[in-house]
Structure formats: C-alpha cells, structure tokens
C-alpha cells in the first residue's frame, strides 16, 4: 500500500447505509424483525451515500454542498472516522480537527481554561503544546477574563466563539468544518473565515460543508455536490456551485402552481434593442399576467443568483384589472456582472385589503447577463452578492 503525505484524504468507493427501522427499538419491533429474519428476509436499509470517490491532497480545500439530507454530514463523519463506511475505504493521513457543532464538545461545568486543556489533550496535544497556543485561543475567542468562569455562565455567543477558537488553533493536518458559521455575529463569522483561510494557507487540508454558497466559493478550491445519496459533480468551486444554483432554481420553477387566481402567462427579459442583457446597460422586462379578479396591490420582481434572496427588488403598486394585462419595466442600468441569474416575482394585495388571491414569491424566469466577470475578494473574504460597479483606478 502506498503511503500518502500527511494531510491526504482518500475516499474510495464509499457507500453508507442506515437501518430504516431503528426508530422503534421496542420489544414488539424486535420480535417482528426476528420473525422477518427467520423467513429469510433482510432488514430494510436506507442508502445515504452511494459510490463516493474523493482524493484531496494536502493543503487543498474541498467544499461539500447539497440540500438537507443529501449525505453531507454523514460523509464528513466518516472522514472524521467516527462512523464506519458500509462499503469502501477511507484513509486519512494525520491529525484530524473537527469543527462540527462547535459548542457541543464544550463541557458547561468546567471553566473556559479547563475546557481548553481538556480539548487539547483529547485531540492529542501535550500540555506544553497547549500552553503555547493558550493566549491565541483566548484572544481569538474574545472571552477575556471570563476564561476562568464556568462555561455555563457564558453567553451563547461566547461559548460558540470559545468552541471555534479551540478547534481552530490546534493545528490539525485535516480540518473538518460543518455549518458552524451559521452562528455568531457577522464580524465573528468573517473572523472565522479568515482563520480558516489562514489554516489552509499553512498547509492544512480543509473539508467545508455549508449551505452558504458565497462562503463555499470564497473558501474552497474544489466542491463536491451531493444530491440524494449520489455525487452529482466534483470540480472547481465556481463551476459546481453554479451548476448547483441552476438546479435549485429549476426545482423551484417546477413547483410553481398554475391554479392560483393569478397566473403569469409570459415573462421576457432583454437588453436595449431586444438583444443580449449586458452589464451596465438598460434592461427591459415584459410580464403578461392573468388575474381572476380586479385587485389593488403590488407587483414585485427581484433578481437573484441561486437563492430566494434577491440582489435587488423593484415594486409597482396600482389597481390591476380583472383578466389579462401586460406589465413593462425598464431598469435604467443592470448592476450585475457576467453570470446566470433568475427573475423572481410575487403579487399580492396589502394586508387587510380583502383580496384572497396572490402570487407567492417564486422564480419565474432566468437569463444570462454578459459583461465583465465578478471579482473575488482576498482569500477568505466572501462576496455576498455579485454587483457590477464601474470603477476607475489611479496610482498616484
């Protein structure tokens, strides 16, 4: 067997299954299962990962994305070697540090100081190695004098910061991060991302699981996309994230119901003279609507990239007639860089205005914008939404 350098992670043909009957460990359930086995039937199994292959070299960062329940966390747990793959082999060279539910491993009855030593030892460091990092950990966690206090008297934010700080300063060869940045305030999130980038720059291999696509793009070299136990794609971060965004939008479009009182018959988006949509130039929208009753309300549109959160919205409130009508909107300038975008729309009467019909917020159309590429921030800094701003630089 070849030996790989420290920090290498290899996942070969890994499958994982769970028992689908494990919710009822009661006696009667056991008896039913026993009877089933006597009749020669096997248990019911649920496959949560199918044929996953992943080779990550030291110092690379691998993102894992996918909807809830697609197997992301299970894969991470197997890399952490806390649970065994049902089929296949996972080999990890070097010490593993895990940032999974950061607060969960912190013991509430112990002081912050005791927790730091506890965790350090358990992750395989000796006392002097922890001493060396102690001040950095306390400083990063911003807990100050509270380090001598029992953690149960910490605020939620302090406990999370301490948990993250301990795990992030123990210099493992492989670092696993699962959705930890959903907590903490924005400034601390940014600090965490910064720290993660530093750790990667020092040669640590990173696995990063998140629903937050901008951070995945900011942090990872490559991304693995899991969907319903299968690996859909594995490749450069931006390519895979864009594929994932498009698929999420397609899914959302499929769920649009046509039987409401308001229906969109036609949606068009085009550039200045009916041509391509281009950055920094005017954009024309044309929407044909059918309403089963006249209503006073507002029509909203928004443009987004892969999420229900629009980059910006426009709103038009007036009395709409019954039947078919057409809305036109011209955006003076398109403030977006090159990319694939979707147009979301909603229509509803204000609260208490009597009308029972409405159009829920949903993607109704998608389009390509042509122009300059979006710029990436410095390592570890995420760009939340792509916006195109014309700029001129001077060096004086």
């Amino acid at each position, binding site marked *: 067997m070849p030996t790989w350098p420290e920090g290498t992670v290899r996942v070969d043909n890994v499958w994982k299954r769970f028992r689908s009957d*494990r919710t009822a460990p009661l006696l009667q359930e056991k008896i039913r299962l026993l009877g089933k086995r006597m009749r020669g039937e096997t248990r019911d199994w649920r496959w949560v990962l199918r044929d996953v292959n992943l080779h990550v070299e030291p110092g690379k960062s691998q993102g894992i994305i996918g909807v809830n329940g697609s197997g992301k966390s299970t894969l991470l747990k197997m890399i952490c070697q806390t649970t065994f793959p*049902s*089929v296949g082999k996972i080999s990890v060279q070097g010490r593993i540090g895990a940032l999974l539910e950061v607060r969960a491993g912190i013991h509430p009855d112990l002081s912050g100081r*005791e927790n730091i030593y506890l965790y350090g030892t*358990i992750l395989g460091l000796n006392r002097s190695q922890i001493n060396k990092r102690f001040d950095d950990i306390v400083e990063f966690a911003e807990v100050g004098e509270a380090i001598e206090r029992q953690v149960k008297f910490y605020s939620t934010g302090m406990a999370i910061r301490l948990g993250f700080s301990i795990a992030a300063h123990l210099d493992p060869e492989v670092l696993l991060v699962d959705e930890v940045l959903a907590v903490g305030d924005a400034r601390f999130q940014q600090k965490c991302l910064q720290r993660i980038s530093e750790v990667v720059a020092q040669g640590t291999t990173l696995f990063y699981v998140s629903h937050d696509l901008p951070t995945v793009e900011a942090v990872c070299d490559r991304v693995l996309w899991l969907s319903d136990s299968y690996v859909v*794609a594995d*490749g*450069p971060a931006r390519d895979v994230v864009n594929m994932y965004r498009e698929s999420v939008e397609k899914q959302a479009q499929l769920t649009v119901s046509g039987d409401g009182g308001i229906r969109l018959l036609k949606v068009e988006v085009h550039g200045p003279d009916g041509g391509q949509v281009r950055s920094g130039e005017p954009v024309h929208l044309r929407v044909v609507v059918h309403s089963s009753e006249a209503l006073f309300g507002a029509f909203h549109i928004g443009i987004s990239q892969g999420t229900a959160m629009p980059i910006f919205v426009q709103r038009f409130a007036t009395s709409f007639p019954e039947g078919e009508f057409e809305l036109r909107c011209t955006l003076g300038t398109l403030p977006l860089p090159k990319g694939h975008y979707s147009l979301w729309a909603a229509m509803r009467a204000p609260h208490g205005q009597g009308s029972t019909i409405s159009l829920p917020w949903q993607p109704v159309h998608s389009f390509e914008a042509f122009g300059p590429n979006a710029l990436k921030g410095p390592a570890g800094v995420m760009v939340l939404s792509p916006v195109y701003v014309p700029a001129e630089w001077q060096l004086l």
Partner: protein
Amino acid sequence: MPADAAGELIITDISAIPNEPPPELLYRHKPRLLDAARNLKGRWEVIFTLAERDLRAAYKQAVLGIGWALINPVMTLLLFTIVFHKAFPTGTSKVPYYLFAYPAILAWGFFAGAVGSGTGSLLQNKAMMAKTHFPRECFPLSQVVESAFTSTIATSLLFIIFPVAHVWPKTATLWFPVYLAIELPYTIGLILLVSSIVVQMRDLNQLTSIGLQLGMFASPVVWNLSYQKGSKFYIPHAWQPLYLFLNPIGETIDGIRRSMIYGFGPDWGLVGVAMAGALVWMVVGFAVFKRLEVNFADMA
C-alpha cells in the same frame, strides 16, 4: 486561484451506479482484540483527562466538594451498622461491625461506582464521540479511573476506623494487590459489556441500577463468605469456586477483609478461580464492546 489549478470538472453518470453495492463488498466489523488492546496503550492521557474532567465537573458546584468522596462511604457505613447488623447476623464477634463492613464497602464502592457511572458514559459523551476518533473504550475506562480516585480517598478513613476499634491491621493486609488484581479486570469487563449494550438497548440503564443493588446483597458485603458461628448467609464450601468464578468480586471483598482484619493470607485455590472468572469477564466484555462499537456513532 485560477480555475485550471483546481482540476477538472467531473460529472457523475448516476445511471451507471447500481442501486445497491455488490453485497460481498459490505464492511464486516471484525476487530482484533490484541490489536485493539495494543492501540489502547498510548491512550492513558485521554483516559485520565476524561476522568479528570468528570471529577472536576462533579465537585465544582458542590459546597463540600471532594469531601463527598468521604461522606458517601461514611453514610453507607452508618446505614449498614444500624440496619444490616441486625438483619444479617454475621458472627463478627471478634471485631466491631463497622470494621467488618468498611473494607467491603470500599471494595464494593469502587466496583459499583465505576459500573454505575460507566453505563451511560458512551451516551453522555455523544458530542465528543462525534468529533474525535480515539478508541471508544476510553469513555467507560475513564469511569474506572474516576471511581478508583474517589475510592482511594475513601480508603483514608481506615486510618481512623482501625484506631477507633482498637484493632491493628494485620501484615497480611499487604496481600491487597492480589485482590485488586481480581476486582479490576472484573470491573473493566462488566463496564465494557454494559456500556456498549446500553447504546442500543436503553432498558439496561434501569437494569444496571437494580442489578447493582441486588449485586451488593449477592456479594459478601454485609455477610461473610464462609460459615461463621451464628451467621445465616454464607456460601457452602463446595459451591464457593463456582460462585467466585461467576462473581469474582466476592473473593476481593472477602479476601481483603480476611487479610486486613483477621490476618489470613490468600486461599490460592479460590484466588485462582476468581482471577480466571475475572479475566473471562474482561475478555467477553471487551469482545462485545469492540463488536458493537461499529454502531456507537449512529445509535448513541
């Protein structure tokens, strides 16, 4: 980072992946006990750290702190002296009852303390199990260390009890390591067995506390192993080997008491049987634990 440095984009052909993998590739968990035991050797630090953590946490907000390690056995001793002295005549005429009972309370207390807190040790450390991959035995074993620590503190009371009783411990007391060598593997075996099974069968949580209570009466804590003048409860000589094989702690309790108070050396026949029993318990416990550990992370 330029895109080409991040490698190529691979899109999976999902239709080429079968619904289930070939069954012959399924992972069968067949742990090798010797390897596992060897792997445990470098983990003392983790075991002791976990024990230290639990001790610190347990006594942190208690006003009397570590004093409870003394108060608990004293209370038990008072209870025994007042209640069981009458209920279980033991023929202890030569020494006061409290002296007769205390060494047994110590030996039993170590065992019961370890098994009692060790049962749930995997369930309680779920969060830590999800992040770290050192051998799972460390969790229950840390409870053995914790119990050993409190028992050692409780042992210091012997320095008071003996003078109060106007009795001097006999030199045969020095045989105690032999008896601990029986108790330790038995405790380890039972704690591994119970803590691993309880992960998938929570019923055992309830059963353990009942079992420990019954076990105390089934062990010669409040009665003498052999017949003494006036005793009602004892194990006939013919049955003692079988009894001690199944419940090796009986020999620990009885042996420590006999050597410490009455000055007898070990009965090597019975020690051998009990030691064999204890080792069987340990191997069985370890084997079951390693067998079941594959499910810990998924079911705890």
